[in-house]
């Protein structure tokens, strides 16, 4: 989660929200959340699990 937050604080182009899956079960179900952390970019599920910073950046830039 913190990497997403760090990117948002560092770039005006990035917004980052943590969503507590248990409190928003309908949204979690719509996005197929079975494992956490699940990373969703622009409303599209991308991957599950923590990754190192360089890989995180590579993946979000690939999604841009």
């Amino acid at each position: 989660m913190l990497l997403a937050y760090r990117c948002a604080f560092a770039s005006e182009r990035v917004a980052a929200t943590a969503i507590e899956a248990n409190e928003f079960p309908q949204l979690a179900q719509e996005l197929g959340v079975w494992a956490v952390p699940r990373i969703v970019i622009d409303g599209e599920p991308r991957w599950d699990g923590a990754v190192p910073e360089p890989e995180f950046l590579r993946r979000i830039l690939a999604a841009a």
Partner: protein
Amino acid sequence: MALLRGEEEAKVREWFAALERPVELLVAVGPEQTPPAGARDVDFGAEMVKVCEGLAELGDGVTWRVEDEPDGFPRFPAVSIRPDGRDAGVRYDGLPWGYELGSLVGAILEAGRAEPSLRSESLAELEMLDRDLVLDVFVTPT
């Protein structure tokens, strides 16, 4: 009830004392509570206020305020973490129970830094973004 155990609280106080700029927590409690299924009688909005009030007590650089339904909040309760009171697009939607309290503390620490903690290579890569990106990260408290 204290938010953190003694040792943890002392550590967070130490971290918050080192903040390089003020951080505001804007709490959105939402419309009148309709407790989610299984929530029994927990008032999640009131709990969120307690969490943010409790964190703000640990450092002069951390303040909080409450609005019912501010713009830009699709879910409630939620908290926006704002460096110098500025909306940086960083929120936590839902109550940060247990382990996830660390995510909120981590967001406050990052917001309070004068310079980002990302690697210089990462900052250079973010500079290459030519459109806005919305990252949602689903988490659970354990």
